[in-house]
């Protein structure tokens, strides 16, 4: 069976007055049907731009300048805007960090949902409304009839995000791209959304790309992880393997930076320095200036090399299993 989504060497660059910012530079990843991929990185790593590129939502001065995005056999980059319009919302849906970006503040929820249904399906208004109602019930919104007649500002943050998820689910898409959908929410509400997304995707067999800066949140949700740094994937593989044995020094540093109930008051392990500017990237490995293991071998930049089945690392000096056991 072919992959649902295959991205090969994607390059999305932003042509700014100060130079070319290579926000995404050579990203390759693939996704099976029903699979959940966690795309992890810090601000400026290119994770959101990767998501936007799939949907053809990159605004000027940004442009996809290279690579292929193949969705269910069709190349989205070559297909152009016409083809994208047919897919967006119907087969590929997106959930944004701020649901107010998805929802029109001056239209009632029912107007917006009916519009979405009828954009891709030839059904009556009544039937479309019924579908909207069902979608709201599915995401756990009580009294859906009343809610359909409300405006977005009458909802709390968590409810708005649920509505945004309900809209994404309207056409039972094959793929949902979720860009930091729970970052702005309170912890108890975040857990509710996570649990609903988890069950909904399992029931409908929807594939999901979950874009986040929070490795801990996505580790309990995703089948596979891809960690991005400065526009590249620096480590990818099954979630369990990466969390238990991060091979790239950056991934290892990220995991150790999170307070995890170790003795409080002590110092956390930290990654020194800061993320490089995309306009002035260092030569060779982009992480080398912050990396404790860096040496002369880190230039030229290493490729994403396979260290185990389905596990790729872009590093000359990865933390490997053999070495770990020798050290302990």
């Amino acid at each position, binding site marked *: 069976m072919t992959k649902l989504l295959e991205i090969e060497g994607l390059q999305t660059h932003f042509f700014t007055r100060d130079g070319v910012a290579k926000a995404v530079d050579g990203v390759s990843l693939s996704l099976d049907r029903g699979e959940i991929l966690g795309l992890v990185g*810090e*601000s400026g790593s290119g994770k959101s731009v990767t998501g936007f590129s799939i949907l053809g939502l990159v605004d000027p001065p940004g442009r996809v300048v290279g690579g292929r995005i193949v969705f269910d056999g069709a190349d989205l980059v070559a297909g152009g805007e016409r083809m994208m319009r047919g897919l967006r919302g119907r087969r590929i849906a997106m959930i944004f960090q701020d649901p107010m970006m998805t929802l029109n503040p001056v239209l009632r929820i029912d107007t917006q949902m009916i519009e979405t249904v009828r954009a891709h399906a030839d059904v009556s208004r009544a039937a479309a409304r019924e579908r909207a109602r069902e979608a709201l019930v599915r995401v756990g919104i009580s009294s859906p009839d009343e809610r359909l007649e409300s405006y977005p500002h009458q909802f*709390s*943050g*968590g*409810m708005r995000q649920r509505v945004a998820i309900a809209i994404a689910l309207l056409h039972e898409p094959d793929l949902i791209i979720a860009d930091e959908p729970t970052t702005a929410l*309170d*912890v*108890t*509400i*975040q*857990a*509710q959304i*996570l*649990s609903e997304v*988890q069950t909904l995707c399992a029931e409908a067999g929807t594939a999901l790309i979950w874009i986040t*800066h*929070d*490795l*801990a*949140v996505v*580790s*309990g*949700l995703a*089948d596979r992880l891809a960690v991005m740094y400065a526009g590249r994937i620096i480590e990818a593989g099954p*979630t*369990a*393997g990466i*969390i*238990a044995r991060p091979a790239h020094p950056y991934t290892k*540093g*990220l*995991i*150790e*930076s*999170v*307070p*995890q*109930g*170790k003795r*409080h*008051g*002590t*110092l*956390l*392990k*930290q*990654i*020194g320095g*800061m*993320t490089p500017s995309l306009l002035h990237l260092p030569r060779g490995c982009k992480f080398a200036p912050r990396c404790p293991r860096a040496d002369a071998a880190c230039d030229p930049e290493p490729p994403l090399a396979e260290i185990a089945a389905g596990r790729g690392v872009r590093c000359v000096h990865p933390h490997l299993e053999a070495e770990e056991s020798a050290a302990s």
Partner: protein
Amino acid sequence: MTEPLLEIDDVSKRFTTELDIAERMARRLGADLAPKTVHAVDRVNLAIRPGEVMGLVGESGCGKSTLGRMVAGLLSPSDGRIRYRGREIGTLDGAEARDAALKIQMVFQDPMSSLNPRLRVRDIVGEAPRVHRIVPRREVAAYAEEMLAQVGLDAATSKRYPHQFSGGQRARIGIARALAVKPDFLVCDESVAALDVSIQAQVLNLFVRLREEFDLTYLFISHDLGVVEHISDRIAVMYLGRLVELGQAEDLLARPNHPYTQALVAEIPTFSTEKKVYSAIKGEIPSPLKPPPGCHFHPRCPHAHERCRVEVPALKEVAPGRLSACHLNDAA
């Protein structure tokens, strides 16, 4: 037991929206309208010892920031007293009031909205020490650079403007500014929330180091229990304006007593190598305009019974050093 450095004694804060002119007219004509009151903070008691880090956790709208702002003197309590070194803050005059205000400083969440974009960082950090004559005028620039060095910023950057710094560096500038007036007590309101994970770890480490170096006491406010647990000695949990649990940090996380704390602890994101089943507590956070009667948490609580719906549970000692406000502790 040592004398507390800061005592929050039965403090409440209410915000009232007055009726606008149309509503006032409608009321004259017999409409049932009253000014809306939010009990942002409802009778909170807390004592913070010298050198201690008190973590304050809660979700949006629970009143944690309002409490922090009252402690820092930016808001005055509607009821109750806040005492610093045994003296009530609101009643001091002149030089004493100024000294007390300088000794308690605040570090804000968003450095971009708390740093003047038109001042060089040297002037941002140096302004307060100059005005309050903490250092002689001639030495202010050098002093500001020294403060920046303390928080890990190069003195060469002191002539730059805030927009020329990254988020993590701006957070450091906010900390340097607070430290410049030689405070004893810092109120840190979500000071690391906006930062990337790797930068957050750097700033948390800075807080730990500065505390030892300058003998500081912190009130560390955050929605992130994981972060708070890391840095705090004791943790206070708030829900809709009320304190629901207080205890030693490690103990509170290991054995949360209040059902709300239990839910919060369960939701701390942890690294798992297996898929996790998220079992969320149900329901939304109620509006603070219309908090539920009795225990504020009862509509979402899995153990709620009749008494919770009518009677407000008192904050009682359930174990040495541990306070919790839940009726379930009486039943046992």
